[in-house]
């Protein structure tokens, strides 16, 4: 990859972050200003827009530059108090962020960007600019900006709206031995300055010693320069960018302005007596200069800009991490294989071998956990689009809703975060569309006019739970039942449980427009939501209270790569049961087993009845029922809280297993969540406890009162 390609890629990578930051900040403007977050938010949004504009000059299209420029100008107007952040303004800025995102992705993929996005006109109207105003001269404007922005230390003021009067800069420049040793040539600096405007050069050569005392590596010359130019101070400082950390020049202007240099050699205006013609001094507090967090460690623009602090984070291609995850997965399988081979050996004859295997097992586990930690991400990124979605959906539907996000920092595997976005958006849209009532209805019901949607993320027993709840009208179960009977999904006169009715919402094609309009039920695309969640190895649970609201809980695995499993035997086959699902295993007494008509056998454990499932029989590995009092029963709890007692032949042992997708080449198989590869290279299937429960329930109903189920 060429240097330019690398820069280009870095730019687009950064754009993603900048766009997210822009959106976060603009969204913050919508909230009431308490404690001056508005000022900080505007400053942050401005920096983001400005940075995008800077890079866009080099790598993006004219449209991108223009949208970024106008956005930046509007933000600047807010910052300086010329505009007040209203709801409409925030809406426009969010749409501008959208347009920027569209342009960025178009430019990245090399497709033509959207021509003249409607938000351009909106922005122009806000600014009172005629539509044919010339966009900023991108290359001239952005080239000097770019390196300055990349270090993200001192945000550069926007391009001056009008040319300020020329200033006379007096520059005292004394290169020292260090600068020369680092390869800096004073001549090049002088030439660069000369290009900026009329330059008078006075060289002070009085320090040159007699020839016999002359040190070849010393520097004896110093220059006093006088530059007349109307160019911005940063540009005047530019030629000194690299030499300044070693021998900072003294730069003063005839109006009293002075340019100082920070340790990276970035020049900034320190003081000025003149009535500021441009917003040189940022009125808002800025983040710490040169914080290692904001300084990209692989900064390709100025890798030579003097000694830098050690980076606290690095940017790594996801592909490389995936490769690592795959290799660790293979290692886990190899380790299982070795452990299996060693089982036949006498431990006392090979003590070192067994010690080594034990160490290998613990190191493998630690390595695997470390790799998974690299992939872990806060769910925040999946939540990022939600505030806006709530605003816009509510606005479009004429409802009022606010969003509360809890647990944004909860970490989960990157692929889970990515897969969460779509189902979450769907659930939120549904919550506003069908859950939250119109304001007048809410008022009549004695509720606040603003509906509340809460999205909560938390870790719970080795999984992540995401709950989307609203305080709306709740799901009308009677209407679901009526509709299901109409559509022939339920027999007439059926008496389904609440859970079974909720289940119907996920039936593909269950809902119709008519249904949605007269009940506050859900259903549009709920089957898609469930398919997406299932594909992540997760599950959806619904709870609804009439008049009080509805909650959807998604429980998902923390990682899609590895898990702890219990190997068990059913018939001739080996299956893996996730350890997280196992409550206990037991050999039941005959009087603990009861038969319920239409529900199959149930097991009574300490007063609780749990449906029993003979695994080998249900999976067709054996036709005659097995006697549970002679076999083993594993009591399991599914992610949704449902319990099932699995009858298996024997337990083989506990093992870490690598999760392999069954869906990639085959598809969904009921009762099975995924596959894994055992130490002997064979595939074993991973059981899906909740799926098994449904499968068993359906079968018992079909078989009627077959006592053996």
């Amino acid at each position, binding site marked *: 990859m060429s240097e330019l390609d690398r820069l280009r890629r870095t730019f687009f990578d950064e754009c993603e972050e900048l766009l997210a930051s822009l959106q976060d900040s603009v969204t913050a403007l919508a909230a009431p200003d308490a404690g001056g977050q508005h000022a900080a938010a505007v400053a942050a949004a401005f920096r983001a827009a400005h940075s995008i504009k800077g890079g866009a000059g080099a790598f993006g299209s004219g449209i991108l530059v223009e949208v970024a420029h106008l956005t930046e100008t509007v933000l600047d107007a807010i910052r300086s108090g010329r505009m007040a952040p209203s709801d409409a303004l925030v809406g426009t800025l969010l749409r501008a962020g959208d347009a920027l995102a569209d342009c960025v992705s178009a430019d990245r993929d090399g497709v033509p960007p959207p021509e003249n996005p409607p938000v351009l006109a909106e922005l122009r109207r806000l600014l009172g600019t005629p539509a044919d105003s010339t966009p900023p001269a991108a290359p001239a404007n952005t080239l000097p900006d770019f390196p300055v922005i990349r270090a993200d230390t001192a945000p550069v003021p926007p391009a001056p709206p009008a040319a300020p009067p020329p200033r006379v800069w007096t520059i005292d420049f004394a290169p020292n031995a260090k600068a020369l040793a680092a390869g800096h040539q004073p001549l090049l600096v002088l030439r660069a300055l000369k290009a900026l405007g009329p330059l008078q050069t006075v060289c002070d050569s009085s320090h040159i010693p007699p020839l016999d005392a002359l040190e070849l590596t010393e520097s004896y010359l110093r220059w006093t320069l006088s530059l007349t130019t109307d160019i911005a101070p940063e540009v005047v400082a530019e030629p000194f960018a690299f030499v300044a950390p070693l021998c900072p020049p003294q730069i003063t202007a005839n109006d009293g302005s002075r340019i100082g240099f920070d340790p990276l050699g970035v020049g900034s205006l320190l003081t000025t007596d003149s009535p500021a013609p441009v917003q040189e001094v940022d009125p808002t507090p800025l983040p710490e200069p040169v914080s290692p967090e904001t300084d990209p460690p692989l900064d390709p623009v100025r890798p030579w800009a003097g000694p830098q602090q050690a980076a606290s984070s690095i940017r790594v291609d996801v592909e490389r991490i995936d490769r690592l995850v795959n290799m660790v997965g293979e290692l886990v399988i190899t380790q299982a294989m070795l452990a299996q081979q060693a089982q036949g050996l006498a431990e006392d004859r090979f003590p070192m071998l067994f010690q080594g295997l034990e160490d290998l097992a613990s190191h493998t586990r630690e390595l695997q956990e470390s790799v998974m930690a690299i992939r872990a991400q806060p769910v925040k990124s999946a939540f990022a689009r939600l505030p806006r979605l709530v605003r816009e959906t509510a606005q479009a539907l004429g409802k009022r809703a606010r969003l509360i996000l809890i647990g944004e920092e909860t970490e989960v595997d990157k*692929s889970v975060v990515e897969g969460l976005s779509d189902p979450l958006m769907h659930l939120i849209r549904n919550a506003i569309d069908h859950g939250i009532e119109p304001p007048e209805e809410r008022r009549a019901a004695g509720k606040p006019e603003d509906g509340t949607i809460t999205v909560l993320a938390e870790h719970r027993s080795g999984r992540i739970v995401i709950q989307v709840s609203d305080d709306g009208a709740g799901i009308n179960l009677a209407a679901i039942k009526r509709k299901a009977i109409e559509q022939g999904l339920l027999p007439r006169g059926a008496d389904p449980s609440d859970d079974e009715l909720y289940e119907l919402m996920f039936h593909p094609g269950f809902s119709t427009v008519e249904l949605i309009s007269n009940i506050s039920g859900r259903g549009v695309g709920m089957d898609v939501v469930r398919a997406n969640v299932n*594909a992540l190895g997760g599950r959806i649970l619904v709870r609804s209270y009439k008049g009080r609201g509805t909650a959807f809980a998604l429980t998902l695995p923390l990682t899609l790569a590895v898990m702890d499993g219990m190997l068990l035997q059913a018939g001739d086959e080996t299956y893996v049961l996730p350890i997280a699902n196992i409550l206990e295993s037991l050999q039941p007494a005959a009087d603990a087993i009861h038969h319920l008509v239409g529900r199959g056998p149930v097991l009574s454990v300490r007063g609780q009845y749990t449906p029993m499932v003979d695994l080998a029989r249900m999976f067709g590995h054996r036709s005659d029922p097995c006697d549970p009092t002679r076999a083993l029963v594993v009591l399991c709890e599914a992610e949704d809280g449902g319990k099932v007692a699995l009858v298996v032949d024997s337990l083989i042992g506990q093992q870490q297993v690598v999760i392999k997708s*069954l869906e*990639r080449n*085959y598809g969904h198989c009921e*009762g099975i969540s995924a596959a894994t590869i055992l130490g002997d290279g064979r595939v074993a*299937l991973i059981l899906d406890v909740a799926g098994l429960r449904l499968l068993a329930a359906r079968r018992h109903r079909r078989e009627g009162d077959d006592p053996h189920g």
Partner: protein
Amino acid sequence: MADTLFTPFFNDGIPTTDDDTPSGPMQQYVSFTVGGSEFAVDILAIREFKRWTETTPLPNTPPYVRGVINLRGVVVPIYDLRARFGQGPTQPTATHVIMMVAVSERTVGLLVDAVDDVLTVPQSALSAVPETDSTASHPFLQAVLTIDERMIAVLGLERLFSGEVVPPLPLGPSPVSRQSP
């Protein structure tokens, strides 16, 4: 890998006459035997051949789904073509072959009795499936190849895997493809 992979004997193709073929560009097919009949598939769909290995059965699937195997770390389903054609399940031996084929972004294995040959034929050797053909395999046939009086049925893999065999992918942007193994 010698025990799991082998290369079938490839000849230069039939027919390879010296005179140019005015009947259109040449196409290549791999022919194989299932239950005594000869079939062929487009060579471009074939990924590799593998000797029969025991599969892990998938519960509650039709008889032609033999189960899944581990193909270098990837879980791949194996379909029994004989059973798919309604001629009962194959009793596989060490000489049975699994053809790994790519069907619309998926890799699946087809259990066949034997792989025979690579056929290089002109477009003109292909003809439409006769209307009167009433064999069970008919719905899966794409065309018929006629070579030296022999008739070889060309399988349309998509037809074989439409609908019930390969369940449709979940709708919407599929998170499955992003899933780490």
